[in-house]
């Protein structure tokens, strides 16, 4: 197979999207992660109590889990908060998300099919909402997590207005 040399590319980079998510996303992510770890720790403690001998292996697994949990809960939310950003212009929606691994998503507003908002139990506790933007592709919607309710509603109104102004969804 023939291969062409790499094309000349001017050095361009993406700038981060304009807006950070709500500051309350920080405790929200921490709580959600901690809840997950607590379930795992609970199972391990029950497992430890039910056995008659104090197995060294079980104790060391438990200690390891606690260490990982503390590291995850203390590092992940801050890291995430520094990464997660979003922006909506009349032409496109642009998001940046992740922490260890990162994802940037861009979708033209003209291709948006639905915009909706979802508030899970933890999100309601912290007064947050997420905005989900779907296109005609089943490859996964663009999801903006950790917005405060007011901003989320504003974003939905704005996107809905912009979407209606541009026809076609390329299916």
């Amino acid at each position, binding site marked *: 197979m023939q291969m062409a040399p790499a094309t000349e590319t001017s050095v361009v980079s993406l700038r981060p999207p304009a807006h950070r998510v709500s500051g309350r996303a920080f405790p929200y992510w921490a709580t959600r992660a901690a809840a997950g770890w607590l379930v795992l720790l609970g199972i391990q403690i029950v497992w430890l109590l039910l056995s008659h001998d104090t197995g060294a292996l079980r104790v060391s697994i438990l200690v390891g889990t606690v260490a990982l949990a503390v590291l995850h809960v203390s590092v992940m939310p801050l890291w995430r908060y520094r990464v997660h950003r979003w922006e909506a212009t009349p032409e496109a929606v642009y998001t940046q998300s992740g922490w260890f691994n990162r994802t940037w998503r861009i979708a033209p507003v003209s291709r948006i099919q639905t915009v*909706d908002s979802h508030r899970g139990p933890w999100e309601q506790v912290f007064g947050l909402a997420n905005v989900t933007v779907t296109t005609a*592709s089943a490859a996964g919607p663009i999801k903006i997590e950790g917005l405060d309710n007011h901003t989320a509603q504003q974003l939905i109104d704005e996107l809905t207005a912009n979407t209606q102004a541009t026809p076609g969804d390329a299916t």
Partner: protein
Amino acid sequence: MTAVEMPASTQTGPGPLPAAPEWRRLSPRMLLVHPVIELLRAAPALLGILYLSRNGGAGQIWSLVGLVGVVVYGVVRWLTTTYRVGPEQIQVRRGLVRRSVLSVPRDRVRTVDLTSHAMHRLLGLTRISIGTGTSDRKGDNGLRLDALTVAEATRLREELLHRSTAPLPSTATATGAPPVAAAAGTVVARFRPAWLGYGPFSLSGLLPVVVVVGATMQFVSEAKLAPERLGVFTAVGDQLTRAPLGVAVAEVLAVCLVIVGLASTLGYLFRFWNFTLTRGNGVVHQSRGLVTTRAITIEERRLRGVEISEALVLRLVSGARCVAITTGLRVGHGAERGGSLLLPPAPRSEAERVAGAILDDPSIVHAPLVEHGPVAQRRRYTRAVVPALLLTGGLWLLHRYASWPDWSWQLSIPLVFLALILAKDRYRNLGHAMVGARLVIRRGALVRRRSMLSCDGIIGWSVYQSFFQRANNLVTLTATTAAGKQRYAVQDIGYHEALSLMDRAVPDLLTPFLAD
């Protein structure tokens, strides 16, 4: 709500109906087909009841009740299913107790699939499935009428797909009448008996053979039959035990290969006999099949690209398949079932010719691709070899400390070499390019795919960078689309090259988000 909702695509429930023609029924001949099919489907259960009650009792009565129930169900289904095609919408009414009306706007129709099983063909019937923009998703049966007469279905197809296209200058088929009511157009590809040679390499017979063998063994052990009493089996068993281990293994493998090869060839023959691909009047049309015939029509405007896919075994004999990247066809269960197939396993040159012809750009299949560079190459090796090494290491540790046998870790050593070969091939196949207004992506080793995706069809981008990719400034760029597999990824492309590619594919989208 989180579910993906398509506005105005398919709604269940009665809506305001415009002035429309009267409701029509399915062909009355289906009164013969439905009960028979339902009966066949219910046969195992009915036989089971009959078998359990062979010593008298009420079982026989129950199985009779079941029989009548099944037949009545078939009749009721025919009576309660009606459809009509209005100027705006196609509507299907179903159900006796829970009535539902499925309405699909006519401008949502992307593909039409006519499938006739053996019974349908005997009675001159065909099942029509209408693909809309959403029907490629799971859990959506789309719009399916089972069944209409062939004439009626063909008329419906013409009506649905040829609504806005002016008739093209007549390019009537030169080589005889196309089979099963094909749309008029130029023939792009036609089945050749020589293609049957690619049948064994499609490996499509592997799964059926495994299923049949499994079922037979299950049956033998359940029924407490003793196959060793049969002379043939005894002779084979004796021969295998007497032969040296290597020879015995080779013999068994050879027999398996021959059986799978034969089954695959038979499957190929049944599915692709009479394969014809035509094009014209704004549609791409394929028809095929020996017993069950299928005729699938794709609206050309919705065709977002073509993919040439070569499974490893097929690649060994320079074979390839050609698949349409389009909306409105189910993709999850393999291209053959989904009907987006443009060419069954055939010579690669043929697949390339068909892809070029459908895309109106014969050079695109040979266009040189951009390499992804030494780091991407190294990542192919680490990602293939490290897991293999870990496996060998783990097995060695198990051997050392858990007294696992020697051969377990020794046997895993060749895997490391296989991984090396795979990695080499994976990198050689990796590449991308912009050719005209199309994004060309090639990747894979076990299945090598060259996807040629029209940039009009790209409805979003996803740039993913793992922790390890970040250190090397690589990303995985995914173009999302409503067609085909919904996502087409360029693996381990340089960050700046990815941005440049996005900018060339969909101009202006990226500009406001670039750093100064």
